[in-house]
């Protein structure tokens, strides 16, 4: 399981696709963040920098560890420090497949940071999931926050996926 998922993460944002999982991909960047309410993080995972919320398009903010159906596992990454601020993510896996990626922390210092987070994270998360279905070896594209994302993703895997 670990080997399979590490393969996915090995190349930036892209990642080998070994799996045939059908994901709910985000289809558009969203300008608004709607508050979903509910409880915050659980079981020792650091708190997200804002209350849990969801950007339309399968972009959960905040830990999902406390609300998983049977058979799914949450793996939380270390905080990755980037020049823009801390990034931390959580992977949800089922049967060796990444089924969801949640963002626990992202740079939120400026309005621009927030806008980037709304644009970049769904994009990178979507690419990770899309890579699983398109059977590709890597993704070519322009991205800036990839580094922090991948660092955090990698550490989530290192932590026990």
């Amino acid at each position, binding site marked *: 399981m*670990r080997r399979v998922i590490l393969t996915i993460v*090995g190349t930036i944002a892209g990642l080998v696709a070994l799996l045939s999982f059908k994901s709910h991909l985000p289809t558009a960047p969203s300008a608004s963040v709607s508050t979903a309410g509910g409880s915050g993080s659980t079981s020792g995972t650091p708190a997200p920098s804002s209350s849990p919320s969801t950007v339309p398009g399968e972009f959960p903010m905040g830990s999902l560890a406390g609300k998983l159906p049977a058979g799914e596992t949450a793996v939380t990454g270390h905080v990755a420090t980037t020049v823009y601020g801390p990034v931390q993510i959580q992977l949800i896996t089922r049967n060796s497949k990444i089924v969801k990626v949640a963002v626990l922390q992202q740079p939120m210092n400026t309005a621009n940071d927030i806008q980037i987070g709304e*644009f970049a994270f769904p994009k990178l998360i979507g*690419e990770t999931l899309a890579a699983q279905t398109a059977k590709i*070896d890597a993704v070519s*594209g322009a*991205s800036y926050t990839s580094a922090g994302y991948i660092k955090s993703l990698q550490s989530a895997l290192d932590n026990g996926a």
Partner: protein
Amino acid sequence: MTGGQAGRLRHPEHVMGTVVSFDVPSWARGPLGEAVRWLHWVDGTFSPYLPDSDVSRLGAGEVSLAQCAPELTEVLEACAAVSALSGGYFTTTPGGRLDPSGYVKGWAIERAAAMITAAGSAEHSVNGGGDVQCVGDRGSGQPWRIGIADPLRPGTLALVVAGRDFAVATSGVAERGPHIVNPHTGQPATDLASVTVVGPGLTLTDAYATAAFAMGSGARDWVESLDGYEAFAITSRGANWQTSGLRAYLT
């Protein structure tokens, strides 16, 4: 930090402001380490963000070119050639100060891949934050498959290109807003949302992608005129175009 399929070694390295991901045969741990050291040396020498780099000191007039690493002379001469070939759309002073990053990343990654080839590997890839050099194929005679991210539909791929011994580079609007300036107007290039260039080596493929993005709609004819290079672009309005030879890379 590493994992992957049997017989393969994958390694993401945080360097040059991005992550460079290696996919190499598992015996190639030594050459991989050598390639990683090379990338860090390039970062320290060429980064415009490090005040002590040769590029920063040369740009500030603190040293002469002769006092810098000889590779800097090589890079600046090559940049001048690309600038001439692209009608000035490629520049080493995009923000008004010396910054050859538009050339250096692709060059450093192509050379890193070549170091692993020289050590005996015929099947590996190096992906520098979205700009990819593929050597040989991905194994078992299968071509490498590179997804091209759709900049207008986050999380989706616009296209998949497949090939052997090839490079794929994409220039686009950065997540922090337009970052490639049309040197002729001084304004950010806005015709295209992204342009992907496919070619043999990442050095020129990446530099051409940068020039093509600055060029905008005129890039189609320009890349068409370049022997051995093809392009795929998504315009800001969501349309797309490709050069005539791109079909050879489509599956």
